[in-house]
């Protein structure tokens, strides 16, 4: 588990939750800017349908990496490789190497539960559980076996504060999480993801179902969260990628076309395809 002081958001709490598993096969203590997620020649196929071709890229620690590209280009699929959500689909074959904080994600010895605790995920459609707000946030802790009420309450407050939702819901923690607005629900899902103190947060088009104001709030939140978490975000919104990310990658038909610091990516794209895509020159 990392001992980085940056990870404690509530300064007065000395609480460290033992859900983040001890690192195995690699050092979790990655400094900001160093490679946290490393993909080497990652390929993925659904049956005969070859979806990802030789993806090689690195995502930096405590930075925001945006994955863009047209629908079906494989960016969400790549995202789901990082926490092995593709396991849920039959007939998936993955080859090549993916390391998350040094941990070989697809190695037979790797515990998928451990991977998913290190790598949190926020989905396109917000999906709170039909439980109270409190139970939603502490779900990850509960399944990790933590029963202590004080601990759960503290983790709940810390996570909701970190997700900029605390002030809006602190008086109704026992009400259903489904009674919130769309933007609030999405922030609740973010709070739920960060309650278990992952190292990485994957966001799969987190704002596509939200109005501009709610989107803005999430973007501000992403900006704050990157102080502590490595964030990979899939988005169709090019402005959003430009606003929130440090590096941007363009995918095209399952291939990585261009991957560069965001400013460079949008102002001086090296690839003709990238230039066409970001200027919208597609018929």
């Amino acid at each position, binding site marked *: 588990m990392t001992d980085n002081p940056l990870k404690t958001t509530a300064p007065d709490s000395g609480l460290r939750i033992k859900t983040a598993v001890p690192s195995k096969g690699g050092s979790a203590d990655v400094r900001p800017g160093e490679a946290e997620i490393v993909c080497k020649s990652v390929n993925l196929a659904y049956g005969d349908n070859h979806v990802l071709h030789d993806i090689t890229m690195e995502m930096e620690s405590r930075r925001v990496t945006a994955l863009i590209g047209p629908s079906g280009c494989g960016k969400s699929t790549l995202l789901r490789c990082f926490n092995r959500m593709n396991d849920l689909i039959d007939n998936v074959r993955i080859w090549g190497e993916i390391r998350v904080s040094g941990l070989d994600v697809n190695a037979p010895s790797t515990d998928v539960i*451990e991977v*998913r*605790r290190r790598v*949190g995920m926020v989905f396109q459609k917000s*999906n*709170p559980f*039909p439980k109270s707000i409190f139970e939603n946030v502490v*779900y990850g802790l509960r*399944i990790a076996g933590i029963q202590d009420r004080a601990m759960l309450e503290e983790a709940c407050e810390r996570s909701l504060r970190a997700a900029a939702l605390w002030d809006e819901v602190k008086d109704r923690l026992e009400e259903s999480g489904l009674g919130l607005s769309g933007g609030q*629900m999405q922030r609740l899902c973010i709070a739920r993801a960060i309650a278990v103190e992952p190292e990485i947060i994957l966001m799969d088009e987190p704002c596509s179902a939200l109005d501009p104001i709610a989107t803005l709030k999430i973007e501000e939140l992403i900006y704050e969260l990157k102080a502590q978490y490595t964030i990979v975000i899939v988005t169709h919104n090019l402005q959003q990628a430009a606003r929130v990310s440090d590096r941007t990658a363009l995918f095209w038909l399952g291939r990585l076309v261009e991957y560069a610091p965001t400013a460079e990516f949008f102002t001086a794209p090296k690839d003709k395809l990238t230039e066409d895509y970001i200027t919208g020159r597609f018929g």
Partner: protein
Amino acid sequence: MIWFTGSALGICLLMIFGLLTVILVNGLGVFWPHAIERVTTRDGSVLAGELAARQAIPNPGHADHLLNHRIQLRTGNRDLYGFDFTWVNESDIVARERPAGIFFVERSEYGPLVGTPVRITVGDRTIASDPGAAREKLPELVARAARDREAIEAIEKGAIGEINYQMERLRLEARSLDFREVREPGIDLSAERAEVQRRDERERARYAEVEAELVALLESAGGTRVSFETVDGQGKELRSLDIYRAYPANELSVLERAGVYGSRLWTFLSDDPREANTEGGIWPAIFGTVMMVFLMSLAVVPLGVLAALYLREYAKQGVLVRTVRVAVNNLAGVPSIVFGVFGLGFFVYFVGGGIDRLFFPEALPSPTFGTGGILWASLTLALLTVPVVIVASEEALAAVPRSMREASLAMGATKFQTILRVVLPAAAPGILTGFILAMARAAGEVAPLMLTGVVKLAPELPLDSFFPFFHLDRKFMHLGFHIYDVGFQSPNVEAAKPMVYATTVFLLLIVVLLNLTAIRVRNYLREKYRTAAF
């Protein structure tokens, strides 16, 4: 088209409401104390009884076809007349009146008595010698008779019941000692035998004591006798102990009638049946029905939900699973008597017989579990209804959004945790819907029960105060079977008819009550686990 479809619905509703009205009117009207008419006919004979029916006399091909009417009187006094009901043509009647002084008496044998109390004796002493004095004393006697009966029943069912139960156990213990001697030759069991013997003697001594008490009570209570005189001058002497209720049918105010109605209704709900089920109450049948449904629920819900979980969550979807699913769906359509036969063959003879050979060899050849009982009946019904639960549960599980499962799995939950904490709670309302359907079907099912443990009269409830309290091997009574038995197997069909209606009302009422309870629980859960709507 709108008229076409609408009238189809209308016809359905009409039939349902018609059915309900017939059952409710007839079923709830049973307990109302009607007036007693005294009818004098042209040939000079006199009859008295409640007016039971009036119908036109069919005489096809003649001018008076359906013009004349006849009335049916419930005259009671079966011991004197040989029948309960009499038809009288209205054209033969010279006088119809409702005289005061006639009592409607419910008693332990021969159906009701209709007559006037004329004398009351205690032993050799007469304490009332004319109708006026007799009717004054009667209510007090009836009340005391009820108390005496209660005391006698307490001894018979309580103390004597317990002694019998203990003695039966001692007999079985002695037999199992015999078996042990055969199994382990040379073993010395004389100490155990002496102990059994000693306890047996103690129970016998207690029995003698209790019996003496009972005899004394019977003597003191049975000494009081009431003589009645019927309208045609016949006399009948009754022990006051045998009188359950007596009221002057023509002199009651509406409020008093309502009182009799309430008291009869209560008796019906809380008492054991009497007289081949044509009188008394249906309490054992109500109890048996409810307990059977509960036992069935205990079996069917876990079984059905687990099976559905496997089919939906764990099994690899393919030809085999599809085949199983189709088979399960078809299983729901198998006639219930088939399940009854299966329950008899598998549960009663195979499983029950096996249990008897293994655990209750000392009781053989009389079976313990190797005969129909409430456990086997409940399990048979569970088998009958499990397809419904599986299908409904599967659909409920399938309806849990994939995004919710993914959210849980992405949090690092195992599949089992996801199912337990997210999927099952979200599917609970749908699962309960299946359960409600299963319960509704099970509560009304009769055919399989007849083969697996229902009897027309069960002396003991399957739940009592003797260890181990739940006697799942016991036979039980059931409202559905009670209707069949009273309505179609009764020696006195005419007298039993009202009981059929009344029993039907309460069967329906219980099914509705059970369903309403389950529906309330489901609505509560549905509110609690309402899935995202946006």
